[in-house]
């Protein structure tokens, strides 16, 4: 910098530049023009991020991508679609026997909040929204199971279909629990992992139970 000591810049020329630490491929243009870019680009970028996280859930490796850039779009989409698919499962058309939309919504979000609080109280290092993000994204296998169950129920609702649905739901429940454990258990002290895994197990068990006992009108 000593060599440039004699450079003087007039004060009416705006000084611009990069003030964050250059990480990855941040070009000077990008930060200035995210406001001017077409809406399509913004949406596609968010959709790609969500899609990448879906892939991480389906193949749970110990990566920190899900934790580092958390977002709640994915959980919202999954929660809404699961709640929509679970609606209308009442045994009697006059009375409400099946879980309603609000019920499923509340169960998922309230359950996720409780698990997060529990893991924080047990001494976890993960933050509130990161935990919500992981738990929400790991509902993906169960949403897939719900889809499969609905398709199977279209074909018929006998014992065979029940067995198929049972197998699918149990498999997806295991997958969900393993995926979320892979992300969350690392943030706990090693001897308390079981204490954190049990509520997650219970949470996905309740959701799986709602999926399995769903019978359309």
């Amino acid at each position, binding site marked *: *910098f000593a060599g440039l*000591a*004699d450079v*003087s*810049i007039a*004060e009416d020329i*705006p*000084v*611009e*530049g990069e*003030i*964050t*630490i250059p990480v990855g491929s941040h070009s000077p243009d990008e930060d200035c023009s995210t406001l001017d870019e077409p809406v399509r680009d913004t949406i596609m970028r968010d959709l790609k991020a969500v899609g990448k996280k879906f892939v991480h859930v389906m193949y749970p490796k110990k990566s920190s991508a899900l934790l*580092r850039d958390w977002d709640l779009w994915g959980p919202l989409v999954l929660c809404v679609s699961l709640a929509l698919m679970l609606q209308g499962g009442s*045994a*009697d058309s006059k*009375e*409400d*026997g099946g*879980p*309603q939309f609000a*019920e499923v919504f*509340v*169960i998922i979000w309230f359950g996720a909040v*409780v698990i997060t*609080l*529990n893991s*924080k*109280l*047990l*001494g*976890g*290092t*993960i*933050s*509130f*929204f*990161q935990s919500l993000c992981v738990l929400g994204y790991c509902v993906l296998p169960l949403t897939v199971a719900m889809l499969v169950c609905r398709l199977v129920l279209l074909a018929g609702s006998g014992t065979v279909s029940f067995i198929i649905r049972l197998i699918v739901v149990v498999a997806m429940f295991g997958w969900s629990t393993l995926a979320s454990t892979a992300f969350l258990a690392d*943030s706990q002290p090693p*001897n*308390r992992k*079981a*204490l954190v895994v*049990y*509520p997650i197990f*219970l949470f996905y*068990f*309740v959701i799986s*139970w709602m999926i399995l*006992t769903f019978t359309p009108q």
Partner: protein
Amino acid sequence: AGPGTMSAPGAAAAGGGRSGTAAEWGGFEDNMQGGGSAVIDMENMDDTSGSSFEDMGEMHQRMKEEEEEEEGEAGAAEEEDGEFLGMKGLRGQLGRQVADQMWQVGKRQASRAFSLYANIDILRPYFDVEPVQVRARLLESMIPVKMINFPQKIAGELYGPLMLVFTLVAILLHGMKTSDTIIREGTLMGTAIGTCFGYWLGVSSFIYFLAYLCNAQITMVQMLSLLGYGLFGHCITLFVTYNIHFHSLFYIFWLGVGGLSTLRMVAVLVSRTVGHTQRLILCGTLAALHMLFLLYLHFAYHKVVEGILDTLEGPNMPPFQRVARDIPVVSNAVLNTTAKAIALTL
């Protein structure tokens, strides 16, 4: 905020390290990671690490100290190299003011969030358990203690009871689903959660109040813990009997398992109470409530009983707000006769 905020870290870097471009940028990087940067990236303010709100407080403190250091250094630097700071002189002050404002806003946000966080910390000591301890306490809750002349120790822990209550909720849901209980006003989930949490919190408070009247040595957390672990017996009983529908089996479990966990709670309370009347009141109430709750959970959400209630009550519906399913008349008669037969055999 481009020009203004650009100058402030420039001033910091200038004040911090003045040897070479690379080192300067390196110094700037160190400042950023150490929290000494004048720029707060507002997007990343909501935590990317666990206790970042605590770090925020420290960070702001450090930034304030660094700012004070910086001003002294910048003063010295200005004398040395006036031209270098020429383009940043006025902008530096403006930048610092803007950055200062951002710090204050951020600090206010952080301290509000910190006080919220601190409220959770109140509960932290009650969750300080190991899995081995939880397992040991679960098994102990079924073993009545023999020494009632010596106050028994109760662990004031809330993790086990909370998990047991949630497990009970899950088991209840399962029971309600398999018996096709239809709740008219409310939802299945709401009823299950309300029942279990209501019992745990309500009966704990009531017994704590009675303990206060009867001069028993027990705190609220201990009572919550004791009753919570007492629900372990309920969980086992309901888990078995919701799947195997034999009335006699339920009664055996009710007396055996429910009785054991009640006996344990009663023994612990007796060991902490002085005086016969007080012991009788306290333990009688607890035993009655605990056993009756198990009875209620079984009968309120059980399919076979619907037929019995229909025959006994007739047109008067029980106040559970539960509606029997629309069973065709023929099978209803069959169900009622079988129910009567079972009732007769018991």
